[in-house]
């Protein structure tokens, strides 16, 4: 592998990492406020992607305009998920896994029924150009996606650290009972977290559909990636999530450069198993801000 290929892989990996950060944040936010793992996370992103594709192929609008539309379209599902997660029995982590395993199956079936399992890509011409930068060639679409992801992550960072709402959400994830005793409306904080996280899923989905082909069973890989990132970064640590996301993106880009796309899914699953075994205390150990 030449130095140029390596540099190319590192840069495109870092760009992809910004996108992964965006994807993992919504998973980690829900885990934070509910202690529930949403295994249907990737399927929701794919659903957002399919909605984006459907609107794009119908209207021909620039994909970036469709990001807010797909984000808003998932809001009703956020309320359903919130209702279900609110009723989870103990142990919450395990019962949320079981519940969302079923929901993931349901979403996949709905997508299969609506889009018949065909591979779809938002192949907008406005995203296909590439820019040269000192010998490196950067795909314009990837740059836009990375910029959009960074923008959202930055906005979320400000929202969580600088606003009353953000303090309420962080307090709820740290200790739900203590937060409630201090007069924080934990239910409202949880509900708004779900609404925001689902908006992010929808938005992520449209961005994803411009990078990768969509297919109904493709969600599991995204869910596994989100879990890997959450294990690496700990819950609620925004800067660590960004660092972990970029690291993961670079690892993936290097895997692709070395051995081709066939090994991608296997590497993701191996990373998940390895991370779980290495961190056998569970996710809760990294619970801080």
């Amino acid at each position, binding site marked *: 592998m030449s130095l140029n290929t390596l540099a190319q892989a590192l840069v495109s990996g870092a760009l992809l990492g910004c996108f992964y950060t965006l994807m993992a944040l919504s998973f980690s936010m829900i885990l934070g406020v509910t202690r529930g*793992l949403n295994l249907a996370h990737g399927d929701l992103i794919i659903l957002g992607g399919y909605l984006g594709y459907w609107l794009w192929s119908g209207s021909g609008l620039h994909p970036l305009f469709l990001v807010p539309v797909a984000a808003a379209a998932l809001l009703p599902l956020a309320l359903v998920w919130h209702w*279900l997660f609110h*009723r*989870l*029995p*103990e*142990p919450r*982590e*395990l*019962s*949320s*896994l*079981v*519940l969302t*395993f*079923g*929901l993931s*199956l*349901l979403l996949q*079936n*709905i997508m*299969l*029924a609506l889009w018949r399992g065909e591979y779809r890509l938002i192949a907008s011409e406005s995203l296909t150009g590439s820019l040269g930068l000192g010998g490196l060639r950067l795909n314009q679409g990837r740059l836009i996606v990375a910029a959009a992801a960074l923008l959202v992550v930055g906005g979320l960072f400000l929202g969580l650290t600088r606003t009353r709402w953000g303090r309420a959400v962080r307090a709820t994830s740290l200790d739900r009972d203590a937060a409630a005793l201090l007069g924080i409306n934990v239910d409202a904080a949880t509900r708004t977290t779900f609404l925001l996280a689902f908006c992010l899923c929808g938005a992520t989905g449209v961005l994803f559909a411009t990078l990768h082909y969509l297919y109904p*069973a493709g969600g*599991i890989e995204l869910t*596994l990636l989100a*879990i890997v990132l959450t294990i690496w970064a700990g819950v609620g640590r925004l800067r660590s999530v960004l660092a972990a996301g970029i690291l993961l993106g670079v690892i993936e880009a290097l895997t692709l450069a070395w051995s081709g796309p*066939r*090994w991608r*899914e*296997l*590497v*993701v*699953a*191996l990373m*998940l*198993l390895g991370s*779980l*075994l290495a961190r*056998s205390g*569970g*996710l809760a150990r990294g619970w801080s801000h």
Partner: protein
Amino acid sequence: MRYRAWIGISLVAGVLLVLPPLTGFHPYYLYLVSTALLFGTVATSWNLLAYAGQISFGHAAFFGLGGYGAALASLAGLSPWLAIALGGGIGAVGAAGIGLASARLRGAYLALATLAYAEIWRGIAHNWTAVSGGGAGLIGIPPLPTLAWLPLDFTRGRAGSYYLSVAFLLVAIAVFAGVLHSRLGLAFAAVREEEERAGLLGVHPLPWKILAFALSGFFSALAGGLYVHMVRVVEPDLIFSRYFSILPLVMATFGGLHTLLGPAMAALGLYLVSELLLHPYVPAFHQLPYALALIVVVLYLPGGLATLLPSPRPSPQRGEGTQHGAT
């Protein structure tokens, strides 16, 4: 309760044995019921593992290992009977492997590890083209041979695999019943309820966990081996599909965790309702019952999944006596 359970088993077994002649050895119905019985076997083996407190999200790994093992052995010229048994052994080893590797993981994290394990095998099957045939898989797997000493109708075509799947389910149930009524069952329950205290009392948890994984993997892999001899092809996305991880979990939790017959009953009921009543009319939504059953169990089952994990304090309903009954 126990007598009623045995009467129930005998009745259902009797119906299952006379079903093929009654349907005139109809290939489609035999295939359908055989598949339901195989799911019943996998659900029973899932439940055996859950009895030892280990919740698996990756039984597709064991099912698929059995499938690939049996398919490769059959294609290499081994008799399908031996090939299926060999597949069972491979599944048992594969299951013991993940049980050993994830010895320190509990609850949700063990579940995630098993989920990753199934995805890893799917990835290996996709990439190890020389052995697994890659994404296209393997074709030309022979059917089960007929037996000369039995009437031809009972062993040829779908009927042979049908009777073998009945046998697998009955053996799996018998083994689970044996476990429940032996010291092994007590050890499993001790590992499930109070892992640390069991260790202090001299029941070292790890060997029992690995044994539970191996037993569970063995029966799931037998089912997988028979399945590939029924459909006669094997592909990574078919046999390592998450479908084979979700369905046993749904069936066992819906039928009643830790009960002897619940998972098998739920497997037959849910699978046949889905395939016979929903598939012809609303094909896109024929998997709806599984998702709904799961949601109902998680949200409304008394005690929920808490019975799976060490409880903070002992509860009287969970004594040994109540767990032996059927459904």
